[in-house]
């Protein structure tokens, strides 16, 4: 039977990819907006 809905639902893996892209952009945006944050890149404690 012909698929009447050629656009598949968003798979879990695609959703994870979108979350990943958002995380990368939001996480690293701060590096560009507030360069002083770079000084604490490795500060864990």
């Amino acid at each position, binding site marked *: 039977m012909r698929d009447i809905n050629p656009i*598949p639902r968003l*798979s879990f893996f695609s959703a994870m990819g979108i979350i990943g892209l958002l995380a990368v952009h939001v996480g690293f945006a701060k590096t560009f907006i507030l360069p002083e944050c770079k000084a604490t890149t490795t500060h864990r404690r």
Partner: protein
Amino acid sequence: MQGNYHAPAVISLHGSLAVSWVALFLVQSLLISRRSTRAHRVLGIVSLLMAVGVAVTMFPAGMYQVGRDVAAGMGETGVSALVGVVTSAVMFLGLVIAGIICRRRPAVHKRLMLLALIVLLWPAWFRFRHYFPGVPRPDIWFAVVLADSLIVISWIWDKWANGRIHPVLLYGGLLIILEHIFEVIAFDSIYWRNVAAWMYQAFQ
């Protein structure tokens, strides 16, 4: 975008490759959901080359980071960060290569790639501490709890969608979580510093 960001070219290259790999993960999953397996295979080769590039550029990027933090007065703690860079590179590339080896077993392949994505993303999650400077122990809350929450979400999805948690996702995810917890506990200990110092000398 505001700010006056300055960094060596290798940092920009590393960041570009890492973001591209995440974008490629999304494209690859969309291609498979549309059953475009031929394009998926071709892009898979690109993905592998990119993953190698991400892992290889982690070393000079890590060395730059150490040099900068030592210059900022962080001392041996600054050098200690190098161990986490190396373990991340090894885990990420190991998972991608394992995924490529298991490419004819889709259930295993896609879960290994998912774990590789989660490993690659933890620096991004860790940077969320800049938005929430009041949160204590960001190394626990952002680099482990938030970053590895994707593993737990993946377990829930697998159980819900497939009736069981696939062993690759279960045990691979557990190993990643345990490694991250170990890093939090052991970070900057005397043994950790010795390993970091050895790596720092070896990479120079």
